[in-house]
């Protein structure tokens, strides 16, 4: 009995100690106020020198935190423990955050540099009039492949993936919208199609792809493609860019039938404490020169038109990441199809995953 009591007391004491330490640690970070600004962004998604420059110019201290998925970011902002002043969600997450009333409207008169953004990337369906968000980087969904492993193959169309020679060689992304969208696009339908017949056709077509599918994975495709485990993968252009740094043999193509156009956007969440500073930061990042420097560092596609002339020509003329106007016409942003349709997309995706030839 005495032993049990000693053990019990020891556990309680250790717990208190840990609790106090955690509180101390929390106090020393994430403390926002008038002269601090908490920025919540994806990892490796900003040139930190620019953050220092912003601090020097404005006297605001920036606290920089990172997340690795939209869902993780959403959870943290919902909890509201930290006063995040800026966050960078993807477009579908903005709709979700709006539904949950987690965003503060932007005051456009405080963002004169907003004019630098290419008109093509403004006023998009997920945020009409850019009331809540400003595009930060954009990209596409396409085919990442290794010409060294497939010397006599070219990829220009989604249909090229159905080539019988690619048996057990393709990696897909574990996302219903991406995969079903690919099926729809390959048939010439919109990736926002809600016609059940068209969706059925897409599933039928995708099922024929099964022998070629090696795996349906998440972020692991980066690792697998970098290590030459597979020769072809469905990929987001941003990820493709990252993997191409790792494995220079790889290249990326946006199929001619069209594909998805995605955005990561700067927003001011409801947790913000320094709204003035947040606007200053967004405006700073929209500056042509700053955006150019940031783009050179991150190397994703920038929506900042004024920054394009300041970037190295081989970067902005790379049609893989800055597709021609003609192709851009055929790119579509995901629309919020409503819960029922999203449910249907997921059930079809489930059926596709279960299909074995």
């Amino acid at each position, binding site marked *: 009995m005495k032993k049990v009591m000693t053990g019990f007391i020891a556990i309680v004491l250790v717990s208190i100690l840990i609790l106090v330490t955690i509180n101390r640690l929390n106090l020393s970070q994430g403390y926002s106020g008038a002269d601090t600004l908490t920025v919540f962004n994806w990892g490796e998604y900003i040139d930190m020198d620019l953050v220092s420059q912003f601090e020097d110019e404005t006297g605001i201290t920036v606290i920089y935190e990172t997340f690795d998925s939209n869902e993780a970011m959403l959870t943290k902002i919902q909890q509201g423990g930290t006063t995040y002043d800026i966050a960078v969600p993807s477009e579908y997450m903005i709709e979700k955050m709006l539904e949950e009333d987690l965003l503060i409207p932007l005051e456009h008169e405080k963002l004169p540099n907003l004019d630098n953004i290419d008109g093509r990337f403004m006023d998009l369906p997920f945020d009409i009039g850019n009331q809540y968000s400003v595009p930060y980087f954009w990209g596409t969904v396409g085919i990442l492949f290794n010409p060294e492993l497939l010397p006599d193959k070219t990829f220009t169309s989604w249909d090229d993936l159905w080539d019988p020679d690619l048996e057990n060689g393709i990696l897909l992304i574990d996302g219903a919208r991406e995969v079903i969208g690919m099926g729809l696009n390959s048939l010439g339908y919109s990736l926002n199609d809600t016609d059940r017949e068209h969706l059925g056709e897409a599933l039928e077509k995708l099922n024929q792809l099964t022998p070629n599918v090696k*795996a349906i994975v998440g972020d*692991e495709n980066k690792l697998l493609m970098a290590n030459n485990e597979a020769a072809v993968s469905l990929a987001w252009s941003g990820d493709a860019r990252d993997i191409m740094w790792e494995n220079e043999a790889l290249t990326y193509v946006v199929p001619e039938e069209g594909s998805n156009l995605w955005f990561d956007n700067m927003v001011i969440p409801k947790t913000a404490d320094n709204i003035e500073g947040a606007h200053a930061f967004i405006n700073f990042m929209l500056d042509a020169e700053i955006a150019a420097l940031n783009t050179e560092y991150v190397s994703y596609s920038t929506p900042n038109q004024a920054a394009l002339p300041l970037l190295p020509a081989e970067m902005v003329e790379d049609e893989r990441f800055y597709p021609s106007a003609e192709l851009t016409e055929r790119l579509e942003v995901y629309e919020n199809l409503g819960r029922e349709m999203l449910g249907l997309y997921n059930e079809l995706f489930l059926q596709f995953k279960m299909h074995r030839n």
Partner: protein
Amino acid sequence: MNKKVIRNLYMAPYAVWILIFVVAPILLLLYYSFFDIHGEFSLINYQRFFTPVYLKLTLSSFWYAALITLISLLISYPTAYFLSKTKHKQLWLLLIIVPSWVNLLLKAYAFIGIFGAYGAANNFLEWIGIGSRQLLFTDFSFVFVAVYIFVPFMILPIFNAINGLNPALIDASNDLGASKSTTFRRVILPLTFEGVKTGCQVVFIPALSLFMITRLIAGNRVITLGTAIEQHFLVTQDWGMGSTIAIFLILIMFVIIRLTGFRKRGA
């Protein structure tokens, strides 16, 4: 009378605990399962469960869970048996349990490396002359990794059962002229059956709803009920359907435990 009151008082915290953490969640699942995607009361989810998609999903989950349990048992029983005969039992047991302290995800990622096209497993196959082949994202690798993860949980209860066996009973069996195999079949096996049952339940139930390694190791070529539940809660936000699948899992588990668990042997 007074004693009874005090005893009930002592019981209270446990009763509250069970109410909040066992009864309430199940009732909540049941409640959610009656709502369709628009939040309206309906039985559509139950109807949907009996469509080919979910029935196939259920069958394949059970098939893989059964396979994983069977292989784990085939590996674990002899291991536990020989373990109980070794000199430094506790040390060996510790060595078997240590891997279960390592985070599951970390182990899964390690296996991606091992089973990869240029990984250790293929290097070995190349070296012994079989030649490299596709290991990752196959049924084999999925079952292999799952068995690797679950084996410690199967060994422990069986080891405890064998270790707790009274050696005098085995001596008696030998003295009465039973051969080694008869002793094993008629004495050791029935007496350690409780351990086997516990082990099987401890492995089978989580194996049914494995979901992380279905993606990492099997590349979503194997789909379990766990994957479907995860999707419904996180992606589709169709909590009703997710709950319905969970309810069916609970029902089926209940039936299985009923069929296998409570039949007392020769009491």
